[in-house]
């Protein structure tokens, strides 16, 4: 502490950095806060219930978003990008595809939203008399559905990565896939359709999206002749589509 001005300068810079990050997180939340305030005070003309809980909760959301975005650039993006770079440097298509499948499967199998949907689906199907209404058969149905979705997300990431490696245009896969979705919707049992469309969204959790995006963009950047924008994106789009097809197929098979 021989030179206090240096110390102050350093802490000034840290504070300024924190302030900027906090301000940018605040800008992200400003729309939602203004909409809620406007409707509560002007349209519904009511005071806020549990006012201090709301203020405290908003501060948590603000800090959480700030930390998340900071960690994104420090942790999740480099992890995905480095893995893509190291895998292409190793040059083994086999390991790249194994990794892609494992990534899709492992992020989906434990997803809380998927567990909730499968349980609900088992209950609905048992009530409709499609499967036996006993605990054992409901549980095995729910587990089967979870495995089916996790497997299909694994396949989806595998197809998506293969597409980046080969340079196939994405819209062939998407248009072909959605035609399959429409055909399956026409022949699959009615009870499974809503569930199938819902499972499409479960692969896009907040942790998975940054990792998968960084992986795709990383792969497209480290392979010659691929464009990071045109070829690097699209993994999420395929991961939303494929589970719908597989779950409807599962419905056809099980009933």
């Amino acid at each position, binding site marked *: 502490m021989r030179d206090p001005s240096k110390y102050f300068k350093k802490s000034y810079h840290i504070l300024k950095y924190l302030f900027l990050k906090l301000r940018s997180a605040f800008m992200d939340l400003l729309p939602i806060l203004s909409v809620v305030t406007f409707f509560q005070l002007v349209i519904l003309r009511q005071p806020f219930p549990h006012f201090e809980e709301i203020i405290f909760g908003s501060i*948590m959301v603000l800090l959480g978003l700030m930390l*998340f975005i900071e960690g994104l650039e420090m942790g999740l993006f480099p992890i995905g990008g480095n893995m893509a770079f190291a895998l292409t440097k190793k040059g083994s298509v086999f390991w790249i595809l194994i990794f892609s499948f494992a990534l899709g499967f492992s992020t989906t199998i434990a997803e809380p939203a998927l567990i909730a949907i499968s349980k609900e689906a088992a209950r609905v199907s048992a009530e409709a008399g499609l499967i036996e209404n006993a605990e054992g058969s409901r549980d095995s149905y729910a587990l089967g559905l979870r495995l089916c979705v996790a497997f299909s997300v694994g396949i989806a990431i595998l197809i998506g990565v293969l597409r980046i490696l080969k340079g196939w245009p994405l819209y062939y896969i998407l248009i072909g896939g959605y035609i399959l979705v429409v055909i399956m919707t026409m022949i699959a049992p009615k009870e499974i359709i809503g569930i199938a469309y819902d499972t499409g969204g479960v692969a896009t959790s907040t942790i998975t999206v940054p990792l998968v995006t*960084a992986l795709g963009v990383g792969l497209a950047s480290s392979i010659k002749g691929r464009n990071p924008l045109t070829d690097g994106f699209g993994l999420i789009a395929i991961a939303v589509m494929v589970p719908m097809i597989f779950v409807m197929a599962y419905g056809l098979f099980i009933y």
Partner: protein
Amino acid sequence: MANWPLDFLKLFLVTLRDVAPVVLLFAFFQFFVLKQVVPNLKKVIFGVVLVIIGLALFLMGLEKALFPLGNIMAIQLSEASFISKGYHDPSSWLAYYWVYIFAGMIGFSTTIAEPSLIAVAIKANQASGGTISIWGLRIVVAIGVAIALVLGTIRIVTGTPLYLYIIFGYIIVMVQTLFSPKKIIALAYDSGGVTTSTVTVPLVAALGIGLSSTVPGRNPAIDGFGLIAFASLFPIMTVLAYAQILELKNTLKKPSKNEI
């Protein structure tokens, strides 16, 4: 207020459990397949810890403050007593106009705060070399979700069948896909997928179920769903349309050059 630390700990552990399989997979590949250590390992681990703490705080704040408030507001706005004082004919679908405005605004604002969309927008900005701006993409996607929710709530009130909207929507998206700049297609479809993440889904589901239980003749089990399917379809349209408008502008400005 008293059990906030306990709730945070619970959410932190849940988030940790969600992240664990991914971390194990990456660690396995780094050590056994690639046989190398991640560069800047300490910084990366610190980043992952920040992500987990950040997400746990974010989710807790939402669950404690914004979700309950959003639910109450959705129910109040669709209550018969509120609807009938605002419009001369309370049985008309137009009487619910505040519900549509609320749906659109809440769709827009929650999408702006969606962490996975922020992640995709940052990556799109980097991958495009700065051509795609982070806020530009987020606003275009948010407009898509806003349109989706306005149409979705109108559908619930009028009781028109969901599949008509979905089939018609997908036809528009397919036609757009054929005619839009090829560079943007992958990003547009990805943006559709990320809108159905942490912030938007719980609020939107509450709005759909609340509305279909107050509108006479609607069944929440059948009519309450569909808003989320809408919310992932319409952003694809708006992002493709945005790219088409930009391309059109460019060709009008410089007829001799083919940009984008």
